[in-house]
């Protein structure tokens, strides 16, 4: 019997930009509403802190990164920990396609920012399905 893999979702934990907050809410949207049975939230600082259970999880399961901006910190951190990055979504790129959905502030996204987070979350949910389809096809 093979244990069913879950997708580890790593979100930007930045504090000084509204796009980081969008990334986080998008992550919650996938984890709590859209794909709760198929995803696990990864603690990004723990990867750098060398917390073994988090590092092992990122190595043994496919990882979906939701970065806030072009610095791509989350992707770099997961790669640094030798995690299996299978897909990356950048909130900044999504915002370029939805310029009217500018979040209000880092503390309060407002209705437009929340809508942006939902769009990113839906995009992430589709990526989760793709990743799991590929993983199951490959038998890895």
């Amino acid at each position, binding site marked *: 019997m093979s244990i069913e893999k879950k997708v580890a979702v790593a979100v930007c*934990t*930045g*504090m000084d930009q509204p796009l980081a907050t969008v990334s986080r809410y998008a992550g919650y949207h996938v984890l709590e509403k859209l794909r709760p049975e198929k995803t696990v939230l990864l603690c990004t600082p*723990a990867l750098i802190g060398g917390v073994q259970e988090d590092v092992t999880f990122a190595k043994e399961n496919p990882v979906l990164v939701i970065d806030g901006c072009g610095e791509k910190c989350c992707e770099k951190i997961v790669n640094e920990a030798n995690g299996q990055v299978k897909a990356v979504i950048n909130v900044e790129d999504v915002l370029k396609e939805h310029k009217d959905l500018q979040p209000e502030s880092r503390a309060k996204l407002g209705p437009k920012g929340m809508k942006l987070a939902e769009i990113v979350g839906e995009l992430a949910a589709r990526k989760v399905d793709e990743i799991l389809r590929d993983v199951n096809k490959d038998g890895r």
Partner: protein
Amino acid sequence: MKIKPKIGLIACSGEGLCEGMISRVATRRILEERDDVVTICLPLFLAGGQEERDFAKDNPCITVDGCDKMCAVKGVKMYGKVHPKSSIVISEIIRKGKHSGPISKSRIEPEDEKLVHETMKIINKEVDRVKEEE
């Protein structure tokens, strides 16, 4: 005239635990209240942001970790080559103050406000202490 350094606050913001959210919210509220503190973006710091690392070398920093894994402290020591002037851990505040732990990773519930306020009080006290020492 001596220019007083700002204090850098580094919250773990870890998504894996509810305590990470408390560290983020309490730190953010302090940033909105005081003009003598700034935040250092932990992921950028860890991913190699030179500006963040230089700031931590040149200015006193206080870490606000969610749990006893203390990833923010480890990251600052490992990548910034500096020791934080003070280290605050939310799980210790919960234990010492006999607070009930937060239950949501994504939002602050009304019953978490007491813990957030207690954390803010401790951060404020530590910022004042570190400033005095500087």
